[in-house]
């Protein structure tokens, strides 16, 4: 046993973030701590590293054992010298990787080696993480995201630690790269604790999964046992909420959202959202009990297999007349030193009641294409029409009147709503701009609110009082309020918790069906696209590499890149 976490509790000013958690990591084992925003997983990781902010209080024990050093109680440590970097290594969040921007890679590696007394050479460390010695002379900004993360791992290995703690190591990395990094981490043979929100992504690489919800452990289960057997309803929900690229497996979502840190319910914290909750669940806290190979904290394990969640529906009718037609779109960005081609000859069309998925990784040009469809960018070449009207040639007033027929759901729920406006005003804004008569506005706002699946009690609130999922629904209501013909949703669910993403897709689907709306659904997640769209267009480096029916693409993609994306999107 390398790490033994015993009854650890973390509170911030009286509010409990981590609630009496017990966890073990065996020698060489990879344990993933998985949960959504606010579940306490990051606080737990930081507590083990002694990196909590000063207003945090920690209790409990965290014992680090190895056959090279005496046992160490992390909770009792005041002097972390010689521990961090040497006995416990940290792998930081993906994209920037916390590398020093002004030192060469070699210098940073040597620094860690000198500090922690490792025997290896920088070249050895680079080899272990799959990089060539040629990168020694580079600076961090010259490397790609994946390469930087590998260097970060190499820096961690320099001290030959007994335990690795990885905090969201794949954030900001592209899908294909994510898998490679996780594979690297799991192949190092060091006891590892990976903290992540991506349950299905970790399944191929972890040995055991610990699922956390609202500060407590819901379930601790070996990966092998995860595919069969009964599970905590939340775990089942998380698994179902990850969209599969296999269209026969439905994509579900868990209604509601996780409780805020100061506002935790009595009894089982998941009860308000649980489909099989009974009275006991709302009053009595379920203890973590052994069940076969796993430990589960649930009162209702006898009927756990009945836990089902609402699934995202598919299209029911055939698609109608074309609403949006884009032909031969070229777009180049010109800056001082260089010219970048964002889009190179792209065609796209959407019909009434149809949801088309625009899939690509970062840099593929999908966001640019979305903004061209919205009239926010004028393409350097090509033609965009909304119904019979041409958008590309239109200027100022004419363009703006065309834009009023299109709704936009922005990626960022936190920044896309004016913080000083109440929900009613936010939703009504398009009506004000379109000069709809005052008397009609209220009815339209309420109708849009209902279509977006929000209760009227929220009309009087400010965005700061809403959760991410609720904000995104306000965004959707705003996009619908003026009866548009087309809605462009640009990565509408990528910044939301996994369990709520399906809900957004469901809302978009029902709106498309009810109102005959055409929807452009931009995403980087192939699984999402296959589950919620009718047709898919795959973009890469500004070119269309594949397009077709969802069913067809998921089973027989034409292009190799599409196949890569499908594979990377974890089953």
């Amino acid at each position, binding site marked *: 046993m390398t790490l033994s976490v015993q009854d650890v509790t973390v509170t911030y000013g009286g509010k409990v973030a981590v609630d009496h958690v017990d966890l073990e990591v065996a020698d060489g084992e990879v344990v993933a701590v998985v949960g959504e925003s606010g579940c306490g997983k990051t606080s737990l990781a930081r507590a083990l590293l002694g990196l909590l902010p000063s207003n945090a209080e920690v209790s409990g024990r965290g014992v680090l054992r190895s056959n090279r050093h005496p046992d160490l109680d992390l909770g009792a440590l005041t002097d972390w010298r010689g521990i961090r970097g040497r006995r416990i290594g940290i792998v930081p969040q993906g994209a920037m990787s*916390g590398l*020093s921007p002004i030192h060469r890679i070699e210098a940073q590696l040597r620094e860690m080696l000198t500090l922690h007394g490792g025997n290896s050479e920088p070249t050895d460390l680079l080899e272990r993480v799959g990089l060539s010695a040629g990168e020694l002379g580079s600076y961090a*900004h010259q490397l790609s995201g994946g390469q930087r993360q590998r260097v970060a791992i190499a820096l961690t290995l320099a001290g030959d630690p007994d335990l690795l703690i990885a905090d969201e190591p794949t954030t900001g990395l592209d899908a294909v790269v994510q898998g490679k990094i996780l594979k690297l981490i799991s192949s190092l043979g060091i006891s590892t604790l990976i903290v992540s929100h991506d349950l299905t992504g970790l399944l191929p690489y972890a040995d055991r999964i610990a699922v956390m919800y609202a500060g407590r452990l819901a379930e601790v289960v070996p990966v092998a046992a995860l595919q069969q057997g009964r599970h905590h309803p939340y775990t089942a929900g998380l698994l179902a909420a990850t969209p599969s690229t296999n269209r026969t497996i439905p994509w579900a979502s868990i209604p509601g959202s996780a409780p805020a840190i100061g506002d935790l319910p009595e009894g089982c914290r998941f009860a308000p959202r649980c489909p099989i909750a009974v009275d006991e669940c709302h009053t009595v806290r379920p203890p973590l009990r052994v069940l076969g190979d796993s430990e589960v904290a649930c009162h209702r394990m006898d009927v756990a297999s009945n836990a089902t969640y609402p699934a995202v529906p598919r299209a029911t009718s055939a698609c109608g007349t074309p609403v949006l037609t884009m032909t031969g779109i070229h777009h180049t960005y010109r800056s001082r030193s260089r010219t970048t081609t964002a889009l190179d000859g792209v065609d796209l069309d959407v019909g009434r009641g149809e949801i088309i998925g625009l899939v690509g990784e970062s840099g593929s040009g999908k966001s640019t294409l979305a903004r061209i469809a919205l009239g926010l960018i004028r393409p350097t070449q090509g033609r965009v029409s909304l119904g019979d009207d041409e958008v590309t040639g239109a200027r100022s007033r004419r363009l703006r009147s065309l834009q009023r027929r299109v709704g936009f759901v922005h990626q960022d729920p936190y920044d896309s709503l004016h913080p000083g406006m109440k929900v009613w005003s936010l939703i009504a804004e398009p009506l004000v701009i379109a000069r709809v008569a005052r008397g009609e506005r209220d009815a339209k706002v309420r109708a849009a609110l209902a279509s977006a699946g929000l209760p009227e009690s929220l009309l009087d609130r400010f965005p700061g009082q809403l959760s991410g999922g609720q904000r995104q629904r306000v965004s959707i209501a705003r996009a619908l309020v003026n009866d548009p013909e087309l809605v462009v949703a640009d990565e509408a669910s990528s910044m939301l918790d996994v369990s709520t993403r399906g809900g957004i897709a469901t809302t978009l689907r029902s709106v498309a069906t009810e109102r005959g709306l055409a929807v452009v659904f931009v995403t980087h997640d192939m699984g999402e696209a296959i589950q919620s769209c009718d047709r898919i267009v795959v973009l890469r480096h500004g070119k269309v590499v594949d397009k077709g029916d969802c069913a067809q693409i998921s089973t027989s993609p034409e292009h190799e890149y599409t196949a890569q994306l499908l594979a990377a999107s974890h089953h």
Partner: protein
Amino acid sequence: MSAIQTSAPAATPAARRGRLTYLGGRILEYLGVLFVALTLNFLLPRALPGGPLKLFGSPESLARLTAEERAQIATEYGFGDPIHLQFLDYLKSVVTLDLGTSLSDGREVTAAIADALPWTLLLVGTSIVATTLIGITLGVIGGMRRREGKGAFTLIGAIVVDSIPQFWLAMLLIVWFGVKWQIAPTFGATGPDGTTVAGLAEHLVLPVATLTITGIGYIFMYTRSSMLSVLTSEPVQHAHARGIPRGRLVRRHVLRPALLPVHTLIMLDIGFLAAGAIVVETVFAYPGLGRLTFGAIAARDYPLMQGTFLVLTLMVVLMNLLADLTYPLLDPRARTGANQ
């Protein structure tokens, strides 16, 4: 970031070309700015009241000339010519450093400036060194202290010191240190023994003190806030999480990124300081460029005005360019043209 790409080391010919074009572009920009400044300088005396001949003599002496004599001078010096020819003549004169003759004392403008410039450089140079050393040290300490929750008083102190008017502080220093306690001389640059090191140093004390005291506030605050933002940045947080001890962390990972913007600030400051020293030089009767400029304006000495204005502008452009050129030497991100 798309699929994994190989890194681009700085030594590829493409990267070198990119750097050179960038540098070339910047130099061209500065030449452009300089050109516009020269044009303004050219137009300046012509825009001021007094007729074109004011460049050659004071109003009284001009009044004594007859109309024919005035016309003669005008043609001789090309005032009848179209304006663009006059401009070319002006440019020629600038390049050959023939900046005319001072109306006040008949000296060559170039000579007058050459006499005054070293004094200003001495004054400005010394105070920049003092300001930088003190300001940066205090700023670094202030930034580190703030992380631990102390140091609000130093910030208020810096704000107060930054708000003191230079000329008033100069007067106060003269009263206390010059008159009352007789510690240092209060005017001029050299003592009665001529140009001795001790004499120079003595006479520098009060002017440098004035410039330094009023200058450290700003440098302190800027350094402090730069330190704060670097201390809370991701790379530093992670270096700390990797177990790098505090002292080494600050020396290797915090200081240089934090001081980079301060370096740019100081270079620009030097450029502006020559003009900014006008007040101090006037109060302490220090024979530098600032005092020369002020005197020229007060005496309506147009040739001298034009000359000093030119030098002051040149200094700013030069320091700007230097700041741009030296920055990539210190920041690897700027060296290789990273776009992130």
